């Protein structure tokens, strides 16, 4: 099979409008990947599937990856010659800029008929808040069906053109995307006898909140849920007690 570099060149020639970047993998595995232009993602995927030399008919793994906003400190070193004739000084200029985060979908493609692979392709969203739409590759490979639903559920990438885009693992009423790096899970830290590290911090925060009466022991959660008394409990002999002081 051709190398990823050759494949990149071939794709660039075939899709001149698309931006196809080579993403080098610095690790030992050295499985380099191709970052595709999201707008033309599905066309390129179809090409990869149907090209006779590639025949990538099997999409094995679809993964979401969250890349949060990152603060990057740039250090620019400039050499200033000393006017007095001494050795030139090195002046460092620091500047901080925020690299905007994004969400990424990674597809591992193999060929079952030609028995080669993997070709790793990546699609990136514009940011993590509102521009989170990517083209769905489920029409190309049916195996993306559940995996794209899972990514929609856990990361919040919206796959345009997916036939049945619903949450896969969490319930439909759930609002968060828990696999994102900045997700805070609900507060149920009443009984943590062996807490240390991050868990201890959360347990202490829970204790403080309980003492201050902020958290209702019956309904504690990191994000106070909206009250829905009618829907929560059916008629029973033991209604949930209100908060004890």
């Amino acid at each position: 099979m051709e190398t990823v570099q050759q494949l990149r060149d071939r794709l660039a020639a075939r899709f001149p409008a698309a931006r196809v970047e080579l993403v080098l993998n610095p690790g030992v595995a050295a499985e380099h990947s191709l970052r595709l232009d999201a707008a033309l993602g599905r066309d390129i995927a179809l090409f990869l599937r149907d090209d006779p030399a590639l025949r990538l008919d099997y999409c094995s793994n679809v993964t979401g990856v969250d890349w949060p906003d990152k603060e990057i400190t740039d250090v620019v070193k400039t050499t200033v010659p000393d006017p007095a004739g001494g050795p030139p000084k090195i002046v460092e200029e620091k500047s901080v800029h925020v690299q905007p985060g994004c969400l990424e979908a990674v597809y591992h493609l193999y060929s079952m008929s030609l028995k080669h692979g993997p070709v790793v392709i990546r699609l990136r969203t514009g940011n993590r808040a509102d521009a989170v739409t990517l083209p769905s590759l489920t029409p190309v490979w049916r195996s993306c069906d559940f995996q794209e639903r899972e990514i929609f559920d856990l990361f919040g990438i919206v796959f345009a053109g997916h036939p049945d885009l619903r949450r896969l693992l969490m319930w439909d009423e759930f609002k968060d995307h828990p696999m994102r790096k900045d997700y805070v899970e609900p507060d149920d830290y009443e009984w943590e006898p062996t807490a240390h590290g991050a868990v201890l911090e959360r347990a202490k925060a829970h204790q403080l909140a309980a003492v201050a009466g902020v958290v209702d022991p019956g309904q504690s959660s990191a994000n106070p849920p909206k009250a829905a008394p009618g829907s929560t409990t059916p008629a029973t002999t033991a209604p949930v007690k209100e908060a004890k002081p």
Partner: protein
Amino acid sequence: MSDAPQSTPASPRPAPAEGFPAAGNISDADREELRRHGILLTSLEELYNWGRSNSIWPLQFGLACCAIEMIAAATARFDIARFGAEIFRPSPRQADLMIVSGTVTKKMAPLVVRLWNQMPEPKYCIAMGACAISGGPFKQGYNVLKGIDRLIPVDIYIPGCPPRPEALLNGLIQLQKQIKGEKLTGPDAARHTRADLPSEYPIPAYGAHDLEPAKNPAVWTPPAPPSA
């Protein structure tokens, strides 16, 4: 009553002046002595509890890894049928015992409570394995309920990940002992005989971030952590 505790030392019986003592006052040693002579003494309460404790029908309800060990306990090698508990009922209406075998996720928790509510009294709950007791290794997960005892009362906790089938049998024997000791009348009567105690528990709803409510304060009363 061959399985009366044999280790009880022969305590002096309550010294009847004449005649025979009332059935309730006979010590275990005396009763064992009588049994050897072919006389069975019992009370209605004991007979009732004996029957119940030896035909506990569990709900056929597996959640995760521990369910495989529960199935293993029902197969030939461990043979839970020796305890009268082999009839795993698929319907909660016919079951006496709910073995919560595995991780209870928040998505599953309302259904577990509903199944519990559908079981008729007297009913018992065994939390089998670390996950059912406390969330276990998956405790810090966002979708994992940290212990089924936040929502329903649990009678026996069997730790282990997963517990051996023998450990499940051991828990079942403990439950049988508990059932045999239950009183039907009086102030310390068993849960199912008392009208003031609930047999149904509120079913939490799916909320935007968590279950609502995430716990039932009527059954969930954790003490202060020991190291705090």
